[in-house]
């Protein structure tokens, strides 16, 4: 699978490992939530990056403080009509303050890509050979946003009332630099 | 295997108009041009063949529907398909498409 991140196709060094499969000492791997909860300490003890692949019916909140120990969280869009992972993304970014890479996997239409980045997604997995110019063009289709999301883009309300905007920003955590850079 | 007689219909992609699959593998707006299939295999084959027009972006959503073969030719058996075959609603609106002069 190809990886779209920072406006270009990137090499994907990560591998998802099933619950019963062996994990080597030195490759970056993602595991299921269940495996993370059972073996988190051991996996962190390796000299390699660790991540979690969330199923879209699992509770993102279940990761809790652990999000700060993860370099990658993968969220899933099994069918493009199933939008649960948009909420998982926002919970990870806004509620848990996750600052690592957030990756969308599954079926991802270019017409959803912008919404995913607004919800805090950094990277998306695409089928090999899929052209990315449509995805990149999709990010430019809108230049104004009514509602706050998890991407740090200023909202229409903030632009209409700048004085209020500065006061409010103190509260909510802004997202990682990687998201802000890639959505510019 | 014999089944009730069936025909393949779809909607045209460009304007949503009702069209029927003919034995020449073309599409006609006229119900009377639609090919009638009297057994399951040929009906399924016809439905499969109609997928070409989907790929060619001519039609959307082809499906099979039941017709009755009468002395006056085939007729749709359901109210829905009878209305589709007419290409318009069943009523003449007294006021819906009124375009007369507005007095005083």
């Amino acid at each position: 699978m190809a990886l779209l991140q920072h406006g270009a196709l990137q090499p994907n060094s990560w591998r998802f490992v099933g619950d019963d499969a062996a994990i080597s000492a030195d490759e970056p791997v993602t595991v299921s939530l269940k495996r993370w909860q059972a073996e988190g300490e051991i996996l962190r003890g390796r000299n390699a990056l660790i991540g979690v692949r969330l199923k879209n019916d699992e509770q993102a909140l279940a990761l809790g403080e652990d999000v700060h120990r993860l370099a990658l969280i993968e969220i899933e869009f099994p069918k493009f009509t199933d939008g649960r992972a948009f909420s998982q993304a926002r919970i990870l970014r806004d509620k848990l303050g996750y600052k690592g890479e957030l990756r969308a996997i599954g079926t991802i239409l270019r017409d959803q890509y912008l919404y995913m980045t607004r919800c805090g997604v950094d990277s998306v997995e695409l089928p090999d050979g899929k052209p990315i110019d449509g995805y990149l063009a999709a990010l430019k289709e809108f230049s104004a946003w009514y509602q706050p999301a998890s991407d740090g883009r200023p909202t229409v309300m903030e632009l209409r009332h700048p004085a209020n905007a500065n006061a409010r920003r103190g509260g909510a955590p802004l997202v990682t630099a990687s998201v802000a850079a890639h959505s510019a | 295997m014999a089944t009730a007689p069936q025909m393949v219909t779809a909607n045209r992609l460009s304007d949503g108009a009702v069209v029927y699959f003919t034995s020449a593998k073309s599409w006609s707006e006229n119900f009377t041009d639609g090919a009638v299939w009297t057994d399951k295999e040929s009906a399924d084959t016809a439905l499969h063949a109609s997928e070409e027009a989907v790929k060619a972006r001519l039609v959307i959503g082809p499906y099979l529907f039941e017709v009755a073969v009468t002395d006056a030719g085939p007729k749709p058996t359901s109210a829905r398909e009878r209305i589709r075959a007419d290409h318009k609603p069943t009523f003449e609106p007294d006021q819906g498409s009124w375009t007369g002069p507005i007095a005083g």
Partner: protein
Amino acid sequence: MYRYDEFDATIVQERVEQFRGQVARRLAGELTEDQFRPLRLKNGLYLQLHAYMLRIAVPYGLLSSKQMRKLGYIARRYDRGFGHFTTRQNIQFNWPQLGDIPDILQHLAEVEMHAIQTSGNCIRNVTSDQFAGAAADEIEDPRIWAEIVRQWSTFHPEFSYLPRKFKIAVTGAPDDRAAVRVHDIGIRIVKNEAGEVGFEVWVGGGLGRTPVIGVVCRKFLPKEHLLSYLEAILRTYNLLGRRDNIYKARIKILVQATGGDKFAAMVEEEWEKIKDGPLHLPQAEIDRIHRYFAPPAYETLADIDPAFESAKLENPDFARWARTNLVKHKVPGYAIVNVSLKPEGGAPGDASADQMDLLADLADEFSLNELRVTHHQNIVYPNVRKRDLFALWQRLKAAKLATSNLGFISDIIACPGLDYCNLANARSISVAQRLSRHFSDPRKLDEIGELRLNISGCINACGHHHVGHIGILGVDKQGQEFYQVTLGGSSKDDAALGKIVGAAFSEDDIVPAIDTIIETYLANRADHGERFLDYYRRVGMDPFKEALYGPATARRPAAE
């Protein structure tokens, strides 16, 4: 009314360009129909029986004369010369071509209109009270909040792929004219004991296959928390709503399965985490939107207008229309005018392009450039001076727009039904036409009194038959059209769902059946003051069953 600023205009314009690109990609084969369908639905484009159908949003039912004129232009240029006003205050065109849709959307954008999110599994048009801002019984204008919710819900990145559609309604008066109790979220403006104005939030109401009255999720919500609270509800629904079965995917199913109290507690827990974040509404924005809905410059007039009074004395038809179609305005000397789109034999809610032009002109001349679309598929002029009423009536009458039947049995609410709709089991317009002809005599209408009759062509209930005093539901029996009758529904504060009276009626029998129901009521009601709904609530189903199907002992079990 609200006017777009540069941001609103940019967003709508960018959407037009985006959809233009999506249509081009569809026609070029880069998108399959399965991929294109959710995209076109989110721009209001359905595939129906004979053609595409475009549903255009009329936010909370409010239209300027300029916008109405543009709708007439679109009807004429891109359609077959008419449009259909719906039970959610929108307008539908039945014959547009796919390639023309981007141009139609461009025309709409020029008058601050769009077809955004009028279909699809997203938050739909926010509806409200058609008399908002003018009604005498209003606590506060609900349109301010409907506009705030509209903006928040437009292209919400998290809530654009919900389990199913999501409908929100706002009402500002104790008399609920927006049917909030049968919406996914219903917002009632209320005053608490301290006299502060805030919201009572209802959740999980809905009609369709499993009709249900909603539950109160929060008794009092301070205004500044409206958006954060809605976000909490939507997030809970997005995560937990069922995705395995489209007939069980609405929030009403989730609320019923979870239990109202538990659901409210879950929402509260989510809300606690986000209520002081960026969704907290700044007073500056509330004030900004408020200003757009400031009352127009009403003249100071006496409440009794001699010209109006003498016109009624001289013209009995006008007097009747004044009695049936006018509503008390909060400002002396003014009236709220209901324009009936239910003429005898007409298709309920339809208006021709010429009629739309006329309605626009009359709005300019008599109603401060403003019109409303109602849930009952009629039009409202909210601000007409009493002294202008006779002149207005004469112009309406010449265009078949002055039927004196507001709230009577011939003021039928009907979905497009099998004449247009892919989902329908039976035709609804033809039944409506026959009923309106049968009940055309004004004296008969007066005799029957207030009666809400709703017709839906299928169980999706777009005609809201569940909340009709009499409801008619089209059902399919072996490919033929049959009609099931329900009695006793109501969409107002006494919200109730109608009950099925018995076996369904054929196309030939449905009008006589309704006639029998009406005659049963007329013959047995306590007096003229006892409305049909009250009579039904007093006596129940039995007198009607007996009249329709014969005595209980001789009756076969109802085969629905």
